[in-house]
């Protein structure tokens, strides 16, 4: 019976092909350092899930953002857990992505034929930091408000176009409801979309070229 169902699905989905091409791949002997990429992916998914749950209660307006998070922490069942995981997950994701990049640098895995994988990877690192920067403002507390004030000021120090960047980030000369709204939009739609797309390409390239092996004296 199960066999029949499997065969029917396999005929239409090509399950066996997927198994052969995706899972039953040969790989060089790896070690624990090789798990950092998948750990980053896991954290991305986890941040996505907890983030989606948070949007159920979070309100991106200066009048209600702080109180809505207060409510998530105190009023919602297991809200503290979801928020806690999202909060700490952000820090851990930056650490894991950064160490992953260092590992690739140290073993020189960015060299032929994996140059593009590295390039995409730098994009992923920057997008992750962008997630951290936009997400930091959302609680609308003192830390968030003043860190973003300074952060956008720094972005505004670019010669010639600094003024424009500053206004584009803040939605005006000062931090306001507009700033919160666009950081929220960036945090839940724009940057995650970029991240997801880049992760797709990154994974495709990894499957195409396989994981690199640890260099020996031969290399």
């Amino acid at each position, binding site marked *: 019976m199960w066999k029949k169902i499997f065969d029917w699905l396999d005929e239409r989905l090509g399950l066996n092909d997927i198994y052969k091409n995706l899972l039953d791949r040969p790989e060089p002997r790896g070690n624990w350092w090789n798990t950092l990429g998948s750990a980053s992916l896991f954290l991305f998914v*986890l941040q996505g899930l907890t983030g989606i749950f948070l949007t159920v209660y979070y309100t991106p307006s200066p009048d209600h953002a702080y109180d809505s998070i207060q409510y998530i922490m*105190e009023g919602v069942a297991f809200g503290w857990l979801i928020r806690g*995981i999202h909060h700490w997950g952000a820090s851990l994701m930056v650490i894991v992505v950064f160490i992953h990049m260092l590992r690739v640098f140290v073993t020189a895995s960015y060299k032929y034929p994996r140059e593009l994988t590295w390039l995409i990877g730098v994009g992923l690192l920057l997008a992750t930091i962008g997630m951290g920067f936009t997400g930091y403002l959302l609680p*609308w507390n003192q830390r968030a408000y003043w860190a973003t004030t300074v952060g956008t000021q720094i972005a505004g120090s*670019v010669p010639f176009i600094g003024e424009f960047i500053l206004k584009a980030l803040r939605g005006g000369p*000062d931090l306001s409801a507009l700033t919160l709204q666009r950081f929220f939009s960036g945090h839940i739609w724009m940057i995650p979309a970029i991240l997801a797309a880049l992760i797709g390409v990154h994974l495709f390239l990894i499957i195409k070229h396989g*994981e690199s092996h640890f260099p020996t004296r031969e290399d």
Partner: protein
Amino acid sequence: MNDEIKKKINERYERELNRGERFWPDSIFKDLIVSLGIFAILVLLATFVGVAPEPKADPADTSYLPRPEWYFLFLFKFLALYGQIPVIGKIEWLATVLIPGLGIGLLTLLPLLDKSPYRHYSRRIFALTFMGTVILDIVLLTVMASLPVPPDAAELAASTTLQAIGGLWIPAAILTILVLFYAFKRDIYRESTRRSLPIFITVAGSLAMVAMTIYISARAASYPKPEEVEVATTLVDQIVAGQDLYSVHCVECHGDDGSVDVIEGVEGLEGEEITPINSTDVLYTITDSAMYEVIAYGRPNAGMVPFGKAYGGELSRSEIDNIILFMRYTWDDRFEAPEIPALFPPLADGEVPSYEVHIAPIVKRYCISCHRAGKENNDYLMTTYEEILTTGENKDKNIVAGDPNSYLLQVIQGTPIMDPEKPDEEMIGVMPPKGHLKPDALDALIRWIMNGMPETAEDAAKLFVAPTPVQ
């Protein structure tokens, strides 16, 4: 890179694959363990560490010291140290745009810049030493940025200089030497020197950087720690915080139950008619945000001063919000108040109250509204233990250990102190001027003074006298 090298690389990889493992289940297994471990760590962090509470954003509070997310701290420190450099330190965009831009650019173009096909560590000494120095500097700058602020200008200057040496100049020197070495290495040096010298320089420089950072941290250990701001997070805590603030800032005019309609005993506002703020007229028609504005901006024409920091008052956003919560949950019949814990733990027979556990909350709620700097109070301040015992025009008589005729005990029990020279005039009226203390608070104050005003709970516990059992 020519096709021959590419072919060699690919053949080499084939060989590694043949003596390797399978993605499923070998690699996936390890991936799953690590992911599960990360999840466990996150759940533990969320459960046992949680998210540090922080007051609500207050654009008016410009005294707040901005701090970025921890992984930007190194950049923050770098900018601060860079700003100290004469002349180019004033050209901000060099440090905010050019150097980070250069770093990201180098990182992005790395595979195109590093054309050597070799991968083994022994053939990548320049890349590894260079990156190693940068990473170490990032870590050390992060450490420096998280140290407390130096207490005075001299120490600040000294600390900044040390930090600039350890976090800016030594790494810059190492990187410059490495680049020069890389650029000129080919002809000048012997093979062995070429390999060992950059490593030696990097290790020596790194040790110097680490030593500097340790020294700076050791100096910083004696700096005063920044004050931790307590933030009320639960509804109960917020209501209690709001009530304490109300007692300090609002009680004088509005009374402790908000029912005052004609102000009495406040200089300059005597006889002023006001709307009782505990009335449904006020509570049902004024929204939280309108109430916020009233408290923040005041009603200058009606004699109410501004309380919000934005208008020169003392209260932050969160504090005003807490006052509003207190008002709602106490007087507004549409709100159902949670159970509010007692002001101080009840006293057993023979127990002696202490300042820190019992007296401080009572004083905070009932006395310091007037008995603090800037109010009319015969210079009797009550904001700290020392002030309560040692300030005021009648400091010898206000509180006398074991004396039931201490002025304070008389006035809180309804006996005003008469002026010895004009026996018809009150020198000190009954306290609090309106209303009276609850019996348990009164009892606590009497016991406290009769037993010698212990400050800490420990001191008070020593004075505990077990009640004699009734025969």
